[in-house]
């Protein structure tokens, strides 16, 4: 049988999916082993046990200076910034996206401005934000909003425009007002796509979060890895990177699950990644 027609069973698929992960870990372990043979105090590729110990220290042993469990403080602060920023972006995407997509006059007014604004590299605005809002939380959250909202607004507006004209006409012939069309037709049709936009927006949001924390902060996952970089503490940095990746992955899956539960009709056809 041709290879394109062979399909792996569930177990095989799972095993195949594990292969690259296992290969990465094994490769790392071998490289680390040989580096430490030459120099047992090597900091660049610490052993997996050392990373485990460091991670445990961050997660379970109170910091000597502040008495905090650093990993959880960092995680909480970072997720709070990320969550607040994305909540503001989502709200903006919903309000402005629907207005732009549904009402031609609003579209003519705001679409060109938005298209221009979204081309500003957000990170170039960061100094302006720090000057304006100081080095506190507002500047970091504002960076996340500025970095993600324009694209999310545009994709929401596009989702509104993608609603078949037939459905809108049909709603008109059923006697719907503009507001009723928004609540009963546009909003439900757009919400699943807004979740997709949110999932895609989270990718740059993490970048802006870590960047802002690296530049000016006293807590947060990004702050921590850039802080311990001074001591070449790879045993802390690598587990933190894995931890951030895990958080990002779980957030993404959670949103997908919410979308599947709440908008079953949207997932009835073929399903995407």
């Amino acid at each position, binding site marked *: 049988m041709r290879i394109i027609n062979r399909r792996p069973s569930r177990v095989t698929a799972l095993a195949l999916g594990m292969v690259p992960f296992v290969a990465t870990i094994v490769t790392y372990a071998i490289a680390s082993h040989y580096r430490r043979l030459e120099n047992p105090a090597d900091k660049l590729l610490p052993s997996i046990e050392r990373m485990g110990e460091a991670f445990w220290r961050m997660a379970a042993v109170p910091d000597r200076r502040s008495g905090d469990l650093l990993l959880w403080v960092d995680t909480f602060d970072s997720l709070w910034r990320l969550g607040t920023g994305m909540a503001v972006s989502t709200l903006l995407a919903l309000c402005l996206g629907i207005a732009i997509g549904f009402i031609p006059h609003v579209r003519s007014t705001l679409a060109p401005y938005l298209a221009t604004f979204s081309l500003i590299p957000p990170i170039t605005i960061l100094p302006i934000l720090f000057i304006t809002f100081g080095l506190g939380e507002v500047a970091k959250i504002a960076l996340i909003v500025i970095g993600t909202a324009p694209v999310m607004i545009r994709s929401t507006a596009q989702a509104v425009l993608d609603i*078949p*004209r*037939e*459905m809108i*006409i*049909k*709603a*008109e*012939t*059923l*006697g*719907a*007002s503009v*507001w*009723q069309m928004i*609540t*009963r*037709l546009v909003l*439900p*049709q757009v919400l699943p796509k807004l979740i997709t936009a949110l999932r895609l927006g989270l990718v740059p949001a993490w970048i802006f979060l870590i960047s802002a924390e690296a530049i000016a902060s006293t807590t947060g996952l990004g702050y921590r890895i850039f802080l311990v970089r001074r001591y070449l503490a790879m045993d802390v940095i690598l587990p933190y990177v894995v931890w951030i990746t895990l958080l990002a992955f779980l957030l993404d899956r959670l949103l997908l699950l919410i979308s599947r539960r709440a*908008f*079953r*009709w*949207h997932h*009835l*056809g073929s399903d995407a990644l």
Partner: protein
Amino acid sequence: MTTPPCKLSVKSVSKFYDGTPVLERVDLDVEAGAFCTIVGASGCGKSTFLRMLLSQEHPTRGSIQLDGNDLPEEPTPDRGIVFQKYSVFTHLTVAENLILAQEFQTSRLAGKLFGSRKQAALSDIEDLLERIGLSAAADRYPAQLSGGMQQRLAIAQALIKKPSILLLDEPFGALDPGIRLDMHELLLNLWRELGMTIFMVTHDIHEAFKLGTRLLVFDKIRHDPQAPEAFGATITYDLPLEAPEISDTAVQPDDIAETIGAGAYRNPVNNSQTNPS
């Protein structure tokens, strides 16, 4: 012209898209309760004509009058519509699709009913569900229905507001022949019962003869081989048909098929799918 009160009156309507004529000097008077079937080659403006009757588009020249008044500027509940696709709301179940108009009417702000009022609205449509054979599918989403079931739902939904005019844009174009016959039955019964005026665009000439009391053929009168876009189409045949299901008129389907391009007649299903215009 105006001696018998006519339901709908089209007065020398022309429609241009970017200066290209699609329809030219269309005149038509339709009495209440007529079942007008509209046929014509692809791209001859049948659907454009229907969209103008719906106020989805507006004539470049001329006027359309409904009950003696100018047609409203936008779609209104007095004209129901069934499209070939996307006629029903994909995010609502069958039952929710049918109570939506009621919800729009009674809940001005949210457009949604809750609790006992929703239950009351749902029990009001039970007979209708039975009638269109969707009782068992009441809680399913349109994506879970067959094409025929979706169009039955679309027709029922379009009639909820009791429109005096029902517009159908190739409603059965994507359905199997057997299902089509059932749909014809349903449509004719509803028409006899409710007495509305129907305009139906179709690619299937036999369907047009079978269902209609009046057959309108759209075609170009003038044709410039050097510039095929130079002239628009108009109504070239306006045939009164006898009561539906008796197609014993002087002009036979095949003659009309000849004038609108035989392809449309020979392979109506394929044709209707590839030419949504």
